[in-house]
């Protein structure tokens, strides 16, 4: 029974962390910005208009409440079903993963909305003055060599372990796993390249804030890349050593770790009090 208790704790923690704790922290941050940087003075911050931004916030809040309720309903159903002996823990391995995908929807919508907002900011930006740093940007300005090489080494270690557990036979399921890892890490490399060499997403962002944001994103990418490798190793180990009961626990902990190391790290490394919001001010009053 103790393994079921561990699963219940892990799954409850997943529901609380991803659908309550982090959404609440993001909503608090939005409220702070709305309160301290109002639309009448900081119009550049609201390219879609204040009302639409508030509507977006409400939608984000409602979606998270809905997924929190769905999560709690799933949780209670699983507890009751396992208690009554109708299902076994090993049948639940897809639940944390599938529910995790559902929980990711509001975060995904938030990201898409931010990208759209930046695009709109760039299209309506009428400022004639443009700034640039006179120093080259390179990946090691934002992430330590140890961290980056750890992610690369973990990638190869993961492939080696996956193949060794399969007697170095490249079966179709191993190919799919390696393909997903390549896709995931390739996406990080592509997005990292755009951040490093591409155009500024936010045309008004100060160079200091851009440095902080880029650094936070690179840290998050490398952490998630390491985590993906660890997850795939665990995934193959549970199958190889037939410890299926542990799989739903690992799946749940994996999702939580991903959010902790991506959204959590971003929230920790970028605080609104340290962001230069003056760049979004509509008209900067003269000193005289």
């Amino acid at each position: 029974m103790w393994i079921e208790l561990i699963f219940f704790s892990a799954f409850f923690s997943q529901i609380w962390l991803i659908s309550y704790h982090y959404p609440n922290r993001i909503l608090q941050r939005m409220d702070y910005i709305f309160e301290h940087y109002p639309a009448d003075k900081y119009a550049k911050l609201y390219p879609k208009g204040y009302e639409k931004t508030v509507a977006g916030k409400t939608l984000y809040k409602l979606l998270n409440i809905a997924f929190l309720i769905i999560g709690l309903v799933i949780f209670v159903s699983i507890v009751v079903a396992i208690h009554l002996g109708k299902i076994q823990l090993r049948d639940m391995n897809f639940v944390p993963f599938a529910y995790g995908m559902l929980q990711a929807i509001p975060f995904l919508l938030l990201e898409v909305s931010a990208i759209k907002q930046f695009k709109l900011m760039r299209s309506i930006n009428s400022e004639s003055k443009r700034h640039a740093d006179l120093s080259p940007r390179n990946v090691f300005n934002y992430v330590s060599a140890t961290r980056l090489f750890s992610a690369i080494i973990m990638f190869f270690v993961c492939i080696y372990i996956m193949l060794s557990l399969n007697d170095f036979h490249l079966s179709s399921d191993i190919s799919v796993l390696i393909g997903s890892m390549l896709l995931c890490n390739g996406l990080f490399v592509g997005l990292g390249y755009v951040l490093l060499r591409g155009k500024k997403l936010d045309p008004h962002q100060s160079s200091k804030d851009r440095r902080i944001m880029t650094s936070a994103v690179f840290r998050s990418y490398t952490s998630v890349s390491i985590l993906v490798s660890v997850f795939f190793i665990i995934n193959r180990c549970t199958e190889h050593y037939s410890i299926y009961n542990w799989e739903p626990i690992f799946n749940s902990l994996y999702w939580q770790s991903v959010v902790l190391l991506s959204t959590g790290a971003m929230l920790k490394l970028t605080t609104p009090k340290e962001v230069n919001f003056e760049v979004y001010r509509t008209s900067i009053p003269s000193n005289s």
Partner: protein
Amino acid sequence: MQITIDMDDPVPIFSQLVAQIKQAVAANKVNPGDPLPSIRQLANDLEVNSKTVSKAYKLLERDAVIQSRGYRGTFVHPDAKENCQVDLKAWITSEFEELIKKMKEAGVTDSEMRITFSNVLNNN
């Protein structure tokens, strides 16, 4: 160190870039041997065409203010501080003024000068 360009300024963007990099060198804001951003990075940051930045870099390289070291990138020239004080535009103006004065004294007409100048420029 940040540089700023003004899109509404009548001065061409490449000239603004050349002037600002020279000013940065003269004011010790960048030192000899310091790496400079790549053409693509600077063009993306300033949202200008990369050919504009390339033109500015070529002029700075000609003036020995910066030097390109192949795949390693572009760096501030070791003698950049002295070289950025040299105003090639002022030098060429004074040279031409002297030459035109001599030509006029010899009775050469303006159109003869223009045609000859254009021929010589095209043949070199």
